[in-house]
């Protein structure tokens, strides 16, 4: 961002001295968007404990502009699916995803949401990867992933936000796909 902002000094005596910045709309919008990623308060199993640790003072996700865990999907940008998604829970997860306003991002946190994790063989009740249900932007493996890994996942989402175009409402090429077999 810093390099792409140009400061204009028209006239040293002008009242607008040091007060005009020029940038592109894309860069400005993307900068604001990635500086305030609001995740949804939403934990399904053990991984959510690590997510809470990430939100607390020691790891402090607020440093990266992603502090306010919202209690409603309608105010959230980011869905961190933190934990085992059971078949019984799947329709609820889908519904919450559908209730989030665009643009929305999904992070699959932990082995369970990536592929079924420890339940892959005998977990009759576990969805084998949340990407069978909703499109996933970033996968964070681990059982559970450490808070640093979750933060890294957040940075990858922010990287993704950096590349977006305001006029490309469909997010062509950046929107993740549902797993189709």
């Amino acid at each position, binding site marked *: 961002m810093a390099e792409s902002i140009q400061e204009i000094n028209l006239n040293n005596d002008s009242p607008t001295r040091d007060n005009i910045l020029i940038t592109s709309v894309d860069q400005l919008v993307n900068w604001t968007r990635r500086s305030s990623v609001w995740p949804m308060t939403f934990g399904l199993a053990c991984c959510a404990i690590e997510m809470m640790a990430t939100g607390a003072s020691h790891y402090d996700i607020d440093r990266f502009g992603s502090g306010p865990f919202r209690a409603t999907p309608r105010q959230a940008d980011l869905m961190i699916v933190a934990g085992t998604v059971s*078949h*019984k829970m*799947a*329709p609820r997860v889908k519904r919450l995803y559908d209730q989030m306003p665009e643009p929305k991002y999904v992070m699959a946190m932990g082995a369970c949401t990536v592929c*079924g994790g420890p339940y*892959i*063989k005998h977990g*009759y*009740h576990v*969805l*084998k990867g949340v990407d*069978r*249900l909703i499109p996933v932007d970033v996968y964070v493996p681990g059982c559970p992933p450490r808070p640093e890994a979750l933060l890294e996942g957040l940075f990858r989402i922010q990287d993704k936000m950096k590349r977006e175009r305001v006029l490309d409402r469909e997010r062509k090429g950046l929107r993740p796909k549902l797993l189709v*077999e």
Partner: protein
Amino acid sequence: MTPEKIHDALNAAHPGAVLAFDPNPKLPSIKVAPSAWKAAAKTLRDACGLDYLVCLTSVDRGAELEAIYTLETMGETRAPIHVRVLVPRENPVIPTVEDVWRTADWHEREAWDLMGIVFEGHHNLVRILCAEDWEGHPLRKDYKSPDTYHGIKNNVT
């Protein structure tokens, strides 16, 4: 009451109800006939002082399904006594004891949900853990996971 005394009291009150008795001090157990279980449960609670149902679990024994009731007396530190009730797999019906020990209500629903034991007389015997439209009883040894559930594939590749 000691397990021996409980066994004797049960035998005296319901002749023929007790099928087997294991006085193992760490894990005393009594095997009770399913038909006599309801009356025996009331005797255990009222006459033998076993007023706390700690747990109700179930085991798939192949030809038979087994329900195991862990019973204790509140405030006593003796090893709990286990009551085993075995029913044939084709017709796994056990009378409910939810009106004897309130704990049994949800535990019986769980044993029905996962093992498929029917607790006759239960006021609301519906699934408690699996989704309402789930098919089969997952903890039975011959259970096969569904290939798809609500259009979502369950396979692993």
